[in-house]
């Protein structure tokens, strides 16, 4: 019966859609509504129109958090992709104990980022300075996390340590799609080493490069756990990520309304970045 099929599909879709609207769409709309108020998170509030948005663009702390988050996201994405591409090439070449290496290199990705960051926090605070002291590197005698100029590097290292595992595994699956005879044919034309990589390997794995770029940028723009465990936004608010600032000042700092406006802008930024990336990578793939 055709009607029976239609009814079944509706009975599946409607409740699940309702659940989705209840816990995704409605809070999203409420967030947008709060962004036009001076709500503190409790008590009464007034409409303030676009004032939160106007304040957002002149607020130095918000500006710093965007600068930090984007700097972290861009630098970490580059570091992660270069290193994981190298690792993937090594892991895909003729080596011994291949599956052991692949398994071991993926390990950081399954560990909880909060705990990983706590562990690294201790390394940066105690072990690295002790080692630097002994071998006489002055610059590293104090914890890199305690200096506003270098704390972001600590965050970057921890983010990269975990993300490399993920990106490497994706690059490996990309490299496996390249057939061996492409290299053989290229080898006859003198394409070896760097030339082989630049003209043969890389163009063929561009779809996987795109996946990694999208994954990286999006994850690093939303960085939170690492900040929570490494720096709590410090020193001197130099490592406050956007998510951390929204959480910290919005949930307990009495800026519910203002940080809602921040979150709305952040949402728009995420959408723009994602759409731009998809457009860009879509174009690149077509050229092949």
């Amino acid at each position, binding site marked *: 019966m055709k009607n029976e099929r239609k009814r*079944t599909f509706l009975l599946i879709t409607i409740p699940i859609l309702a659940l989705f609207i209840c*816990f995704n769409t409605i809070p999203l709309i409420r967030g947008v509504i709060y962004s036009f108020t001076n709500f503190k998170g409790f008590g009464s509030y007034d409409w303030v129109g676009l004032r939160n948005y106007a304040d957002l663009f002149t607020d130095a702390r918000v500006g710093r958090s965007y600068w930090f988050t984007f700097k972290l996201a861009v630098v970490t994405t580059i570091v992660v992709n270069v290193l994981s591409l190298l690792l993937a090439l090594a892991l895909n070449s003729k080596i011994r104990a291949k599956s052991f290496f692949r398994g071991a290199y993926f390990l950081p*990705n399954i560990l909880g980022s909060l705990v990983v960051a706590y562990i690294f926090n201790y390394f940066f605070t105690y072990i690295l300075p002790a080692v630097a002291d002994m071998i006489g590197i002055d610059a590293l005698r104090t914890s890199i996390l305690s200096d506003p100029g270098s704390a972001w590097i600590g965050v970057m290292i921890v983010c990269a340590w975990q993300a490399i595992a*993920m990106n490497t595994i994706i690059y490996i699956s990309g490299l496996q799609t390249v057939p061996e005879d492409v290299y053989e044919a290229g080898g006859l034309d003198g394409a070896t080493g760097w030339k082989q990589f630049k003209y043969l390997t890389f163009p063929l794995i561009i779809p996987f490069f795109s996946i990694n770029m999208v994954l990286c940028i999006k994850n690093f723009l939303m960085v939170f756990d690492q900040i929570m465990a490494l720096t709590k936004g410090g020193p001197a608010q130099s490592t406050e990520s956007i998510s951390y600032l929204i959480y910290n000042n919005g949930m307990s700092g009495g800026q519910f309304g203002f940080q809602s406006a921040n979150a709305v802008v952040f949402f728009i930024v995420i959408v723009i970045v994602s759409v731009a990336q998809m457009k860009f990578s879509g174009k690149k793939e077509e050229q092949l």
Partner: protein
Amino acid sequence: MIEKKTNISAMTVLILGLSTIALPLYLTIVIAFKQPSEMTNSISGILSLPKAWSLNNFREAMEITNFWNSLKNSLLITGLTVVLSIVVHSLMGYALGRNKAKSKFYSFVYLFIVSGMFVPFAILMMPLAKQTAEMGLANWFGVILLYVVFYMPMNVLLYSGYLVNIPMALEEAAKVDGASTWTTYWKILFPIMRPMHATVAVLTALAVWNDVMTPLVIMAGSGENTLPLAQLNFQSQFGTNYNLAFASYLLSLIPILIFYVICQKQILNGVVNGAVK
């Protein structure tokens, strides 16, 4: 063709690179077993093995962080989320995947849900903290419901993508035999989608198990912890006893390490499938 030899330079890079993973893990283990008096600032002191392999640090850390209760919560939340995700998301993927090509309504719902992938938790967190409190869901059950919603876009995308390759003929054959759509789904389609269930289970389990933000925002007032949340909430109680803190960190990592050792192949496959599709 000449048999290629082992790539020596690749091996060297890999072994050196492995130390950046092995060293932090090694240090975590030895620090977790040491006593505060064994902590010295010399390289040999940092690298040395503990004098005794005593489990006292772990016993104490378990008491401070209420380990078994947090473990129970983490297992409960992760387990139920995975089961619910497989059931709910595969059904939704089926309903949307089978209809979106010919129905405007279903293709709209599909786009509507999949575009939820762009919504960062940061914008939902404050309204959701209020909403779950109002609805009496500021607890582990609320957290599970939220996870089912948060991972819906990704999983529905995966399931409906997988269904494209499953021919309609299977369903039509069952229909001829008089089975309802509902029965056909559970008897024929659900079992066929097993590879995708594995991918969804791995991706959802890893994400939920390690998530901090959702329980932090939603369960803050409930007095209950998940394993990562316990590390955050009891951080101050370790004071300067880093050995105790590391014992606690190691304890919280052990369940997922065991899981990884047992199901490494499935996890790697699941993660790659999820990302590449």
